[in-house]
Every structure is written in structure tokens, then in C-alpha cells.
């Protein structure tokens, strides 16, 4: 919002690239600038959310509530959840990589609505600042990122209202982005480029954007009703005034379950771009991948009540939502088996991007298995609202989405900056992130099974050791960002020059210079009909294997 020196539209027409670092603080209409704005802004909020998470783990290192006041603890956990979801993962997997990559993938020079795109980004920093500053001004919201009434109606109103306002802004930004992606993918494709020739990330973003556009308005409406309950004492969700507290949960989860897919479907898409390029193999099962994305979109809209198995839900509803939820495992499973098949028989470079992608596969499979367990009503009744659930969703959104964000940064950094990252530091970053993450969250499954509820500042002394183990893992995760930050900053200044296509990848963004010019191509956009046309025939494959006197890889 600061230095508004917009590159005016006639400058755009003159192909004059606004240069210098100031353009990243401007109302730029260039999709690549906006993508980077999303990425860097999101990462700053990731660091803030990480500090908040660290504060939670410090509090939980001892069974007493001794590190911060109890109401502050509730503010911290509310902010941690809100920041990580609405200011880090959703904007980065959608906004950052979507804006950077989608115009390349459809062969366009920019997004369909560049100005709307810039508006969508510039809604995020003020919303984020408002959310964070609410802690210092009035005290932040205390009712968790779910803001269930009547708790959210009875806790201090100012913080809750600021929370609602900032989530409304962020939801609006997300809707603008979603509309833009749908329009770009469907209407801005280069002539001759068919839908089924698009790179998989386009399909993931198309599915995600449909979810965003269908479900985010429901959250917005719900939060507006909630704010009426708080400010003018209407009784939509207030049982004291004849309202219904459970209706809020239905409306909230109608958005917030699809929100999980809004966070992981783009990650699925990014992995589908990264793996083929580094395995030197076509993406296995393109068509089934597309259909599974669309099946996940449809199923994702009809599973919300599995978050409410212990609320006031009648038996038939529990039956329906268990079956619907369990069946999401089928299209998701197809995608994972397809990635495994993409790895099989490849020439895999074991670089940081691949390691983070495979870390994602392992973590997400784990989170998916606990997800199918949680979908079963009788199982869920015991562990609902416990640390088992906390562990499960961190495996999905951190082990899943955040690992993919790191993989994507390692993969596209050479394109974005024109320089290579340090691979040794990258692999070290992967190693401590992977160990730290699993040390932090795997033990929490046991905590939940054995009686530790979530969102507590104090717990039974018998859980002390496991909680300290988990806190040690969190410390490792915090430390793991240091080599990453050093790598990213250091390499931008004097990393080795990458060249246009260091991975010899076939997707369109690699067919222009690094970093790409304004409007992406100096000439006409290339027509890429086979974005995954890697690989050699079986005879050639056998021959190269024996030529390199490696007998082990020839006997499969």
C-alpha cells in the first residue's frame, strides 16, 4: 500500500519493464511480480505463524500453564491457525505459484484480469497487519480459528470483530484470485492448446478455484452473521436468544473442509510438475490424474460434517459423511500411485526439489491414513478435538502443502531469479525439516489417543515427556528455516547462473529466459502440446543402462 508508483498501462503496452526492487512494492500488474509478492509476503507471515507455533510449544514443554497467561495462550493459538491457513498456505500455493505459472502454462502474456489480480494481492497485507495488530491493540480473538459460537460471542468483542474483518478481506482476495484463475485457464489459452494438453498444475488450480468460488462466499456470509450476533446482539447462533450454535458449524465447515483441498490440490499440481522433470519420465496416468482432481472437488464439497461427529448430528448424517469422506481416499490414492509409478524406472536426480516432493508423499500418505481412520464415526468419537487431530492435520497441511512449497521453491528458484540454489544446503534443509517435523507431530498421535485434548495450555503430568519430545521437534523445525533463508538470500546475490532451462524441463515456463521478460515471451508464445514428453523407449533405456556399466538397473 506504500509507494504506489503504478506502472501505468501505456508503459505496459510499450513493453517497458518497471525495474528495480521498488516494483515489488508497487501496484504492479505483471503476474510474475504479483506471484513473487504473494510468495514473499506469505513467507513473512509463515515466520510470524512459526513464532506463534513456537510459543505454543514452549508453553507445552511443561504441564503447567506457566509461559503465558491463559487468555494470551488462546489468542496465540487462534492467530497461529489463522495466519498459517489464510496468510501462508492458501495465498502461496494458490496466489504465488498460480500467478507465476498459470499464464506460462496457458501460453498467455498475463492473467485474464491483471488489475483484479493486483487488487487481490494488495488486500492481503492490510488484512494480515490488522490481524496481527489486533493482538497489540485490543487483544486478538480467543476462540480458535474455527470461532465457534457461543464462545466467539462471549469472548472480548473487539478482537473477534477484527479477526472476522481480516478473514473477510482474505476470503475476498481468495475469491478474486479464483475467478481470475478460472477465466485465465478456460479463456486465455493459446489457440491450438487443448485442455487435456495443459500441465497438471492448471487442472489442480481449475479445481481449486471452483472450490474457492463455491465455498468461500458461504464462510463470508457466516462470518457476517456472526459479527451481527457480536455487535448488534442478533441471535443467529446464540442459543440464549433462540439461535442455533450447531448451524454455524455446518456453515463454517462447508467452507473450511474444502479449504483443506484449497490448500492441498495446488500442492498436488506442483508435485506433478516437479517429479516428471527430475525423474525424466512422463507424468504417469495424466487422464486419471485429471479425473481424480475433479472427483476430489465434487466429493470435497459433501464431506464437511465429518468435523462434527460429536456435535449434534443425527445417525443418518454420520453414516453419509463417513462414507463420502472415506471415498475421497480413492481419487487421492490414484494420484499417489501415479506419482509412485512416475518415480518407477526414472533417472531420478536426488536434489532438494525431489527430496521435498518425496517427503511430501511419505508425510501425506501418513496423514491420509489417519484421515481415513478419523472419517470413521466410532473412531472419531474418541479422538475428536484431541492431539490426534492436531497431528493429523499438520501431517496434511505441513507435511503435505508446506513440503511442496519448499520443493517448488527449489524447483522454480532458477527460473525466478536466474540463479541456482546451493544444493548441499538444500538437502541439509530437507533433512532437518523432515526429522524435525516428524519428531514434532508423530508423537502427538499418541497424546491424542491417550487423553490429551487440543487447545489446552496445561495437561496431565504423564504426558510431559512426549510433549517435550514434540517441542524439541518444533525447535528443529524452527532452526531448519535458517539454512533455507541463508540459501535463498545468498544465492540471489552470487549463486551460479542458471541459464534458461537448468532442469531441461519441457513445460512452457522453461522455454523463455530466466528471469522471464515482462509479458513472458519476446516473440509468440510456444505451443507446448506434450508438457511431459520425457523418456525413451524400453530398448534405448536398457541400452543406456548397460552403456553406463550399471547392471543393477538393467535387470528390472
Amino acid at each position: 500500500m506504500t509507494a504506489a508508483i503504478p506502472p501505468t498501462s501505456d508503459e505496459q503496452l510499450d513493453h517497458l519493464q518497471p525495474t528495480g526492487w521498488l516494483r515489488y512494492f508497487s501496484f504492479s500488474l505483471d503476474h510474475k511480480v504479483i506471484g513473487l509478492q504473494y510468495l514473499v509476503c506469505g513467507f513473512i507471515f509463515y515466520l510470524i505463524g512459526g513464532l506463534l507455533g513456537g510459543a505454543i510449544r514452549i508453553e507445552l514443554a511443561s504441564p503447567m500453564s506457566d509461559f503465558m497467561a491463559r487468555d494470551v495462550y488462546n489468542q496465540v493459538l487462534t492467530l497461529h491457525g489463522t495466519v498459517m491457513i489464510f496468510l501462508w498456505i492458501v495465498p502461496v500455493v494458490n496466489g504465488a505459484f498460480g500467478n507465476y505459472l498459470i499464464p506460462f502454462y496457458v501460453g498467455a502474456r498475463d492473467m485474464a484480469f491483471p488489475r483484479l489480480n493486483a487488487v487481490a494481492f494488495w488486500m492481503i497485507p492490510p488484512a494480515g497487519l490488522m490481524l496481527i495488530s489486533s493482538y497489540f491493540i485490543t487483544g486478538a480473538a480467543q476462540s480458535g480459528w474455527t470461532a465457534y459460537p457461543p464462545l466467539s460471542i462471549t469472548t472480548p468483542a473487539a478482537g473477534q470483530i477484527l479477526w472476522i474483518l481480516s478473514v473477510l478481506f482474505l476470503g475476498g482476495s481468495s475469491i478474486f484470485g479464483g475467478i481470475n484463475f478460472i477465466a485465465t485457464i478456460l479463456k486465455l489459452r493459446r489457440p491450438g492448446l487443448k485442455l487435456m494438453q495443459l500441465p497438471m498444475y492448471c487442472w489442480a488450480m481449475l479445481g481449486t478455484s471452483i472450490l474457492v468460488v463455491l465455498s468461500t462466499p458461504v464462510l463470508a456470509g457466516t462470518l457476517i452473521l456472526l459479527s451481527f450476533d457480536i455487535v448488534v446482539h442478533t441471535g443467529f447462533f446464540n442459543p440464549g436468544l433462540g439461535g442455533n450454535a450447531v448451524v454455524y458449524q455446518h456453515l463454517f465447515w462447508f467452507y473450511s473442509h474444502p479449504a483443506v483441498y484449497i490448500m492441498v490440490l495446488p500442492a498436488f499440481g506442483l508435485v506433478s510438475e516437479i517429479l516428471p522433470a527430475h525423474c525424466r519420465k512422463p507424468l504417469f496416468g495424466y487422464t486419471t490424474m485429471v479425473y481424480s482432481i475433479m472427483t476430489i472437488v465434487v466429493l470435497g464439497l459433501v464431506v464437511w460434517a465429518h468435523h462434527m461427529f460429536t456435535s449434534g448430528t443425527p445417525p443418518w448424517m454420520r453414516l453419509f459423511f463417513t462414507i463420502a469422506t472415506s471415498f475421497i481416499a480413492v481419487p487421492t490414492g490414484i494420484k499417489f500411485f501415479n506419482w509412485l509409478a512416475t518415480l518407477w524406472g526414472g533417472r531420478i536426480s536426488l536434489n532438494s526439489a525431489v527430496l521435498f516432493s518425496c517427503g511430501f508423499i511419505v508425510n501425506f500418505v501418513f496423514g491420509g491414513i489417519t484421515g481415513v481412520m478419523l472419517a470413521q464415526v466410532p473412531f472419531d468419537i474418541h479422538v475428536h478435538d484431541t492431539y490426534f487431530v492436531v497431528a493429523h492435520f499438520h501431517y496434511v497441511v505441513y507435511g503435505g502443502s508446506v513440503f511442496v512449497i519448499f520443493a517448488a521453491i527449489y524447483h522454480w528458484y532458477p527460473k525466478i531469479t536466474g540463479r541456482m540454489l546451493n544444493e548441499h544446503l538444500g538437502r541439509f534443509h530437507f533433512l532437518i525439516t523432515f526429522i524435525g517435523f516428524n519428531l514434532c507431530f508423530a508423537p502427538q498421535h499418541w497424546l491424542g489417543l491417550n487423553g490429551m485434548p487440543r487447545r489446552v495450555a496445561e495437561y496431565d503430568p504423564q504426558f510431559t515427556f512426549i510433549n517435550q519430545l514434540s517441542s524439541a521437534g518444533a525447535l528443529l523445525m524452527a532452526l531448519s528455516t535458517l539454512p533455507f533463508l541463508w540459501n535463498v538470500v545468498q544465492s540471489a546475490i552470487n549463486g551460479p547462473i542458471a541459464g534458461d532451462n537448468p532442469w531441461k524441463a519441457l513445460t512452457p515456463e522453461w522455454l523463455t529466459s530466466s528471469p522471464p521478460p515482462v509479458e513472458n515471451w519476446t516473440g509468440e508464445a510456444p505451443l507446448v502440446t506434450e508438457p511431459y514428453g520425457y523418456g525413451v523407449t524400453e530398448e534405448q533405456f536398457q541400452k543406456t543402462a548397460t552403456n553406463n556399466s550399471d547392471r543393477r538397473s538393467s535387470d528390472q
Partner: protein
Amino acid sequence: MSIPSIIRILLLGIILVLGGLWIGQNVNLLPVDASLNAAVYDELFRVLFSIGTILFLGILGLVLFSLIKFRRRPGQQGDGLALEGNLSLEVFWTAVPAVVVLFIGLYSFDIYDRMGGMVPLNHGAHDHQQMDMQQNIWGGIGANVEVSNTDNALAALPVEVTALQYAFLFHYPKGDIISGELHVPKGQLVSLRLEAKDVIHAFWVPEFRIKQDVIPGQPTVLNFTATKTGRYSIVCAELCGPYHGSMRSAVVVDEADDYNTWFSNNAKTTVSEA
């Protein structure tokens, strides 16, 4: 593919399945089971844990194997195999998970039925005279858990649970007792009717494997039969304010005689049945 490698894969698969089953059946991650529900729950847990272990170890093994075996060696040029898909494989890994998931879903519903969860909430066993049925029951694990095993447990023991920041109150309509702790006799079906005064709380006894939200304005029901004497924590599992973490109570499971002593010591009205 030569025959030995098929046998090798088969052997690996068998070891994987047997190993997963062994881990699932023998690694116990759960606390002591102290209700009829808990034993049923643990059965489901072992099945899910076995299937999950097999799947996870299998996929982990495949990833590690691929990364090691198909890694690019120094000096190696060229691409991998141009495999774009394989219809029969894709059908296979669509159909198998679908069948597994369907099995899990049906099995867990059998379990849920045995816990008494599929009983319609507003019919049958809940019209005790103590229960004012003017208000609908909105959710919970309903009635009709088989009241066998015991002689005196002809009817469920009704208890009204009130949750408020930050305590649970237990009201026994039969003796007009109000207690801060829940006392129940071993082996008798207990039927809780739960309602909150202020915000949403949740009633959770980890050793019983049951949980039910306690909602203001919407009564819920929760039935259980304790099977082991002892003292177990009642934990509030729904964020209810700054002191949520310390909102605890206890359920005391006594032998029938001890329970009757406690009951008659505390009852305000003499109850013939007790």
C-alpha cells in the same frame, strides 16, 4: 520379468502384510479399556491400525526403493522409461482402495451399531419419566446398548449432566443428588443427558472411548456401561475459554454395593429402586 523376481515380490508382500498385521495386533497405543464401548473400539482400532501400517510401510518402501534404485548415477545421461500410463494398473489401484475403503466403512458401521450409535435418538429407550422429552435430543450415542451381564440393571441409570465454564455438574434424578463427580456402578448402563449453560463443552472419558459435545440449547445423549472399577478423568475437549485446559472432573466406577452405599449416603429422597 524373471520368475525369481515375481517370487521375491510375492514374498515381500507376504512379509509386509504379516508384519503389518502383527504390529496392528500387538502394538497397543491406547489407554486401559474401561467400558463396553472401549473393547469394541479397540477392535476397530486394531483393524484400522493394521491396514494403515501395511499401506504406509508399503508406500514408504516403494518410495525408498525407487529413490535408491532409479537414482541418477554420476555420468548417466538420458531419460527414464517413457511410460505414460497403464490402464490395467490404474484400474487395479482404483478398485483395490475402493474395496478396502468400502470394507472399512461397513465394518466401522457395524462397530458403531454395536456401540448403540445407530439407534434413532428420539425413540425407544429414552422416554423415561425423568427425561423431559419436550426438547429434542440432537445428537449422541443413543440407547439400546444391551443391558445384559448384570442382574439389577433392568433400566438405564439416568444422569443429567450440566456443563458450564469450567465444571461439570451431575444430577441424579432418582435421588435428587447433585455431585461434582460422576459415580456409576460397574456393569450398569448409564444414560447421560447433557446440556451446557454457556458455551459448547465436550464430555470425554478417554478410558471409555466416548465423547459428546455438550451444547447450550441442544441437549445431547450419551450412553455407556463401565466395565472396570476405578477413577477416570472426565476431560472437556472443546475449547471453552481461558481455563479450558483445567476443566476436569472424574468418573468413579464402583462395584454395585459400594455405589449403593454412596447413593444412599447422598440421596435426598428415598428411592425404592436404589
